C-alpha cells in the first residue's frame, strides 16, 4: 500500500497469546475457592454446635450429632448399603410423585397459558389449593389410598404440581404471538403446533417448574415418610431417633441434603439444555 491511499485501516489485535494467570487465579478462587469455603464454614458451625452440645451436661447424650461421628457413620452406612436401602424407596416415591405432577401440570399449564378465559376461571381456585400445605392433605391421602406409599406419592404430586403448572402456563403466555400465527400460516395443525412450537418454546419453563417442584417434593418427602411406611430416608431418620442413634440421624440428614443438591443440579442442567436463550 502506498502512502497516497486517502484513508487508512487500523486493525486491533484483541486476542492475547498465552494464559492470563491472574485471571485464571481469580476464576479458580471464585469457582472453587468460595464454594469450598462455604462448605468449611457450614461444617465449622455444625462442629461448634456439636461441641456445645457435648460440653453441656444436659445434652451430652446427643453428642454423636457432631460432624466427626456423623461422617464416620456415613462412611459405614455407605459401605454397608444402608444408605441406598433408605434412599431408593424415597427416590422412587419422588420420581413417581413428580411424574404425576408433570403429567397433570404440563398439559393443564399449557391449556391455562393458551386460553385466557381458562386462566381467569382457574386462577383463584389454583392459588387457594396451592396455599394448602401438602401435609394438610395427609388425612385425605390416607383415606383415599390403600397403601402408605401411595399416599406419600399423592402428597408429593400435590405439592409438586403447582410450580410445574404455573411455570408452564407462564412460559406459554410469554411466547411471541407471531410464533403461533406464522406456524399456523405454514400449515401447522394443533398437534404439530404443540410438538414443534409450544413445547420447545417452553421447555426451559417446564424444567424451571420441575426444579421448584423437586425442592418442594424433597421437603415434603421426609415428614411424609415419618408416617406409616417402613422404608425411605424419612423413615430412617425417625428410626434413628427412636433408637437414639444420633450419628445415624446426622448422617441421614447429610444424605438428604446431598441427594437434594444433586437432584437440583440435574434440574439446572436440564433447564440449560432446554433453554434457547443465547446466553443460556
Amino acid at each position, binding site marked *: 500500500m502506498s502512502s497516497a491511499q486517502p484513508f487508512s485501516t487500523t486493525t486491533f489485535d484483541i486476542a492475547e497469546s498465552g494464559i492470563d494467570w491472574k485471571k485464571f487465579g481469580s476464576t479458580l478462587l471464585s469457582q472453587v475457592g468460595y464454594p469450598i469455603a462455604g462448605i468449611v464454614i457450614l461444617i465449622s458451625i455444625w462442629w461448634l454446635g456439636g461441641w456445645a452440645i457435648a460440653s453441656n451436661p444436659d445434652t451430652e447424650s446427643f453428642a454423636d450429632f457432631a460432624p466427626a461421628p456423623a461422617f464416620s457413620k456415613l462412611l459405614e452406612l455407605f459401605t454397608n448399603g444402608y444408605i441406598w436401602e433408605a434412599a431408593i424407596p424415597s427416590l422412587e416415591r419422588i420420581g413417581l410423585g413428580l411424574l404425576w405432577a408433570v403429567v397433570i401440570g404440563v398439559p393443564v399449564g399449557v391449556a391455562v*397459558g*393458551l*386460553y*385466557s*378465559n381458562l386462566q381467569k376461571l382457574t386462577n383463584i381456585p389454583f392459588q387457594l389449593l396451592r396455599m394448602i400445605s401438602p401435609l394438610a392433605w395427609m388425612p385425605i391421602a390416607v383415606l383415599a389410598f390403600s397403601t402408605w406409599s401411595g399416599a406419600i406419592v399423592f402428597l408429593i404430586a400435590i405439592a409438586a404440581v403447582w410450580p410445574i403448572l404455573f411455570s408452564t402456563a407462564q412460559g*406459554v*403466555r410469554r*411466547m*411471541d*404471538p*407471531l*410464533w*403461533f*400465527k*406464522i*406456524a*399456523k*400460516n*405454514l*400449515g*401447522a*395443525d*394443533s398437534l*404439530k*403446533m404443540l410438538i*414443534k*412450537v*409450544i413445547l*420447545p*418454546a417452553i*421447555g426451559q419453563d417446564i424444567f424451571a417448574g420441575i426444579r421448584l417442584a423437586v425442592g418442594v417434593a424433597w421437603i415434603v418427602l421426609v415428614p411424609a415418610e415419618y408416617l406409616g411406611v417402613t422404608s425411605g430416608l424419612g423413615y430412617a431418620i425417625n428410626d434413628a431417633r427412636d433408637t437414639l442413634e444420633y450419628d445415624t440421624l446426622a448422617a441421614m440428614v447429610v444424605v438428604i441434603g446431598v441427594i437434594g443438591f444433586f437432584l437440583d443440579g440435574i434440574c439446572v442442567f436440564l433447564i440449560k439444555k432446554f433453554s*434457547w*436463550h*443465547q446466553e443460556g
Partner: protein
Amino acid sequence: MSANINIDFISHTFKGQEKPTLKDIALNIAAGERVALIGRSGCGKSTLLHMLAGLLIPSEGCVRIKSHQVTKPSAKWNMMFQKPSLYPWMNVRKNIELGLTFAGVKDPEKIDYLLDLVDLSDKADAHVQSLSGGQQQRVALARSLATSPEVLLLDEPFSALDAFTRASLQDEVAGITEKEDLTMVLVTHDIDEAVAMGDRVLIMSANPGSIVGEVKVDLPFPRERSSSEFNLVKEQLMKTFESLVGDSAPVNISPIESHATEPEDKADAA
C-alpha cells in the same frame, strides 16, 4: 405459480366494537401483480392483510384466491411481519424448513436453493439469535417461500431495519417475486418502499378503513431510486395521498410493535 386475489366487498367490525374497522373493500389483484398498500396508522391495513392470509375472517364479504374462498390459513399464501419472529430453538435451516416439516416433506435441495436465494448459504447452521436484523428478516422470507406460496403478504417487513439494509431487501424481494412469479401485497408506511416495490400503490383511508385511490408505478425492476422517473411517481403518490387522506404529514411514523391485531387469546392462533 401465482394467483389472483379477489376481495369481494369486505367489511369488518371487531367483537365488542360498534364502528366497523373496514368497510366495503372491493379489489382485484392480478396474478403476479405487486400491490403496495399505504395509509395512516390504525386505518386497518394489517387487518386487511390478515384477512388475505386467512388469519382473520371478515364479518362481511369474502376473499378469494384463485377463485377459492379463503376460510383458513394456508401455506399457499404466506404472511411476513415486521418482526422476523424466527424460532430461536431451531437453526437457520430448520427455521426455513419448518413449513415443509409440517407438511411431512423433505427437500434439502430446495432449502439449499432458498438459502442461496436469500444469500445465507454460509449461515445454514447458525443460531438465529446470532444473526443481524436484516439477516433474520431474510431467513423469515426464505421460511415464507419454502412452501412455494402463490401469494406473499408483507406487513411492514422492513420497517425495523436500517435504510441501507431496507433498500437492498426491497430490491431483493421485488426481484424474488418476479423470479418466483408471486403475487405480492405489501403494507408499508414508507412511500419510497411503495414506489420501489409496487406495480400499483393503493391508498387506504381510516374510519372506516377503505381503499380510496391508487397510483400505478410503471417502472422496470430494479428501480433506480435517484432517477427522475422514480421521483416523479413518488411526488404524484404523495400528492394523491394528501389530497385523499392527508393533512400536512403524508405518512405517519410507524410504531415499533404492531399492537393491533395481536390475538386476545393465544388459542385463537393456536
